[in-house]
């Protein structure tokens, strides 16, 4: 039994302006031992983040108040301080010194107008009363501890000069400057790419081992929990529904909600065995393979570049090679996933097909018709056949239009039917995606994220498309909602014979929905093939690295690894640059990879 570092009892928090009964956190208990990693797991609205910010007494700046409860922080044997009873001045001495915090969004959590050095040093100056020079030394050693390359240079840089992963490392460095006893990490990897997430988690574990601090981890991701936590607290609607040892929770979840969370948790089946690669000369289809289904959408050598201009005459000094020589076929009723990390060009590929970004070269053939060079009116006709569903269901619906107007809009634009016919069609579409007719007159803000994505799907279906390009359609949703939306997509695909180009960074979601997978890296498809082949025997080293970074499903699978920060490779090339990569080589049945 480890000594308790922090004991929270009967913590209740309420947002100002809501009725007295409606608490965001409803009297929870929680204990964190010295050097322990405790994870609070829950979906949006569970109160997990509010709990974390209550310990730091930051909720008071967010329009919330702590109604009751205690948070006893150990000051040594037998001496405890109630954080919830401290005045603001004494609380400031605790924050950043004994208890530190890192946040979800490394892109916005650092002050854009101050250098990394300034932001690090002010913490040391405040809590250690150190001189500027001493503070600089401590800041530098913290940057070294978070394994940032070229730490001396980073001190003088501004946040926008660093990648997301680097910024999160800076945030961690900032948090460990004063060697806190407790680090609160609020969704520290949610906004990061999967390979960067693996780096940051490994780093947190390493620092936790080195310094012996305790970590309170707030997350919605069971995979992250499996990677790092000792103890788990599951929260639902402001209450703790289950807590215990991580192995116990994973092996024998007691509460029904915990079981649902574990079931819904995206997990990659354990198909990954990076065995020796065999290049197959004459690949044969596996038994039971359907032959030659119709090709609906064909992309040939698509190239999209964005010019980087500079200087007196705005010469093009470089090009961002967002999409480089991308070719693939999408067959009838097939789901092809484009996977890759942010900046790999997967979204630009989707936009280039839709002509929302202007491609520099290549062809897009829709049911055999070349979209290149068609006139505006014909393009409008062709657009009916391809529809898009976007990532952010909050931003992609016009807030001033009712649901009926939103779903009817494409029908009106294309003048399909009288208003009563359109109305009937809207109602049947809403029925199909699981919304009621009574909801047709409501506005987007009256719906949850999952319901909004249903509305987006209904809108995409309105024109009876052959192809739907779904750009990260479930990334903004809670895991339990994700499953429902993916099921809906599968149903409509079957029912309306739709081919789906599924763009995603989430390997687990991709595994669930795909027939085939194309992996993109620096604008190119570096591997493409049937789902089981790509996930089971990835041929390209990048695919292997991507898969290895996916969080584990069970704490028993933990492996120790420390991954240093990598400079991100960028697809910015000088003008006239000729990109030399190995051609796609056959590595299995319909399975190709760019390997030498």
């Amino acid at each position: 039994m480890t000594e308790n570092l922090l004991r929270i009892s009967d913590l209740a928090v309420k947002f100002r302006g809501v009725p007295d009964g409606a608490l965001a956190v409803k009297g929870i208990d929680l204990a964190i031992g010295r050097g322990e990693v405790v994870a609070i797991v829950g979906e949006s609205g569970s109160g997990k983040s509010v709990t974390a910010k209550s310990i730091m007494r930051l909720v008071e700046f967010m329009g919330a108040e702590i109604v009751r409860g205690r948070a006893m922080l150990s000051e040594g044997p037998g001496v405890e301080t109630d954080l919830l009873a401290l005045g603001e001045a004494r609380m400031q001495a605790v924050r950043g010194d004994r208890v530190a915090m890192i946040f979800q969004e490394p892109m916005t959590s650092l002050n854009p107008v101050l250098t990394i050095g300034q932001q690090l040093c002010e913490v040391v100056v405040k809590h250690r009363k150190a001189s500027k020079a001493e503070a600089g030394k401590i800041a530098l050693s913290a940057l070294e501890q978070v394994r940032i390359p070229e730490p001396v240079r980073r001190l003088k840089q501004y946040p926008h000069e660093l990648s997301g992963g680097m910024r999160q490392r800076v945030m961690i460095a900032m948090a460990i400057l004063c060697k806190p006893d407790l680090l609160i990490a609020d969704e520290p990897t949610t906004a990061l790419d999967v390979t960067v997430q693996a780096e940051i988690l490994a780093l947190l574990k390493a620092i936790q081992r080195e310094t012996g601090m305790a970590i309170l981890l707030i997350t919605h991701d069971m995979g992250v929990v499996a990677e790092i936590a000792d103890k788990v607290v599951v929260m639902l609607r402001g209450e703790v529904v289950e807590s215990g040892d991580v192995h116990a929770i994973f092996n024998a979840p007691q509460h029904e909600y915990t079981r649902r969370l574990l079931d819904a948790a995206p997990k990659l089946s354990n198909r990954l065995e990076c065995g020796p690669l065999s290049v197959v000369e004459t690949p044969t289809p596996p038994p039971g393979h359907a032959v030659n289904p119709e090709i609906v959408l064909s992309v040939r050598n698509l190239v999209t570049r964005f010019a980087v201009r500079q200087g007196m005459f705005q010469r093009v000094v470089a090009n961002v090679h967002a999409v480089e020589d991308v070719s693939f076929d999408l067959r009838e009723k097939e789901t092809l996933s484009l996977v890759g990390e942010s900046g790999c060009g997967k979204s630009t590929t989707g936009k280039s097909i839709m002509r929302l970004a202007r491609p520099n070269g290549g062809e897009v053939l829709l049911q055999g018709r070349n979209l290149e060079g068609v006139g505006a009116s014909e393009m409008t006709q062709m657009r009916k056949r391809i529809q898009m569903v976007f990532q952010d269901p909050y931003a992609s619906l016009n807030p001033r239009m009712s649901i009926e107007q939103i779903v009817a809009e494409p029908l009106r634009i294309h003048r399909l039917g009288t208003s009563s016919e359109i109305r009937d069609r809207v109602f049947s579409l809403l029925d199909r995606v699981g919304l009621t007719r009574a909801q047709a007159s409501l506005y987007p803000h009256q719906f949850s994220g999952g319901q909004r994505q249903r509305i987006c799907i209904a809108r995409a279906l309105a024109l009876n498309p052959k192809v739907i390009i779904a750009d990260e359609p479930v990334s903004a949703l809670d895991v339990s909602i994700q499953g429902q939306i993916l099921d809906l997509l599968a149903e409509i695909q079957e029912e309306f014979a739709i081919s789906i180009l599924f763009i995603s960074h989430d390997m687990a979601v991709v595994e669930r929905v795909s027939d085939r997978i194309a992996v993109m890296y620096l604008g190119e498809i570096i591997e493409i093939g049937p789902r089981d082949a790509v996930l089971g025997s990835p041929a390209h080293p990048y695919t292997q690295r991507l898969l290895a970074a996916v969080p584990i499903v069970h704490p028993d699978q933990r492996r120790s690894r420390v991954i240093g920060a990598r400079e991100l490779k960028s697809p910015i090339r000088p003008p006239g640059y000729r990109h030399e990569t190995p051609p796609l080589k056959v590595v299995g049945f319909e399975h190709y990879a760019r390997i030498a």
Partner: protein
Amino acid sequence: MLGYTLRRVAGTIPVLFMVSLLIFALVQFAPGDPVDMLVSDEATEEVRLAIRSAWGLDQPVYVQYLTFLKNAVMGDFGQSFRYREPVMDLILQRLPASLELAIYSTLLAVGIGLPLGVWAASRPNSFIDTIGSIGGFFGISLPNFWLGILLILLFAGTFNLLPSGGRETWGLNVERVTGFLTIDSIIAGRWDALWDALRHLALPVVVLGTNMTGIIMQITRASVLENLQEDYVMTARAKGMSGRVVLWRHAFRNALIAVITIIGLEFGTLISGAIIVETVFAWPGIGYLLLQGISFRDFPLITGLVLVYTTMFVLINLAIDMIYTVVDPRIRLG
């Protein structure tokens, strides 16, 4: 940075060209004959013709424009009809008076509006915030000719504390170096003249600055409040920074970016908007000059002044863009 500056300066050329064309056309289509302004009513037709040809008004329109353009490029806007002096000289004589007024008004507005805005934002919905907002609203809404006349009545009339108009008391004769009376007095070591200049500046500066004070206060308040909601402010609080550090070092520095934009825009309108205030206070600036030029259909003067205004606007915008790069490291010009 240098390349960017040059490009921006070069970019002003087509703007100025378009403005010159526009203002020239406007003046051409304006009703009335400028010759009427140059001769007495009893002048014979011969005299009128002679005047017309002497001023080049008998030339085809495009010749007039090209002549004007050629001279304007050399800094020569021609002779003022009314003053019978080169327009450029007239403008240069009066420009410092307008600039002095605008600069002091801006200093006043920034000096009062900025701290009040931050103060109000640090205590949203408090008493000071409410009072500040109401005050700011008044500042924005008060018409400045009305405020000017009111203050003249009060301070120059009833209390007899300040002069009611003009820039200096007759006969002080401070040597002109910069054209800014306050600075020239200091250079000459004439403290009586400095005091006199400041007394003359007081009322017009207050009147001209009131509106801008209100606007800067409201913008500062809104911008600081918005930045206090940002993630990095939460980070700063989580680091244990005090409320004062969070407010000034973190939120305010970021809020400043929006405020600087407004200061730049407002400074531009102060120079042109000073027309009314300069008239009310008989301030010998270019606003007053423009008003007289318009009432006398003094086309060369109007054209010259409008081009000067345009150039100043363009330069102010350029200066603001340069200041951005200092305040916001994310902005790299090039």
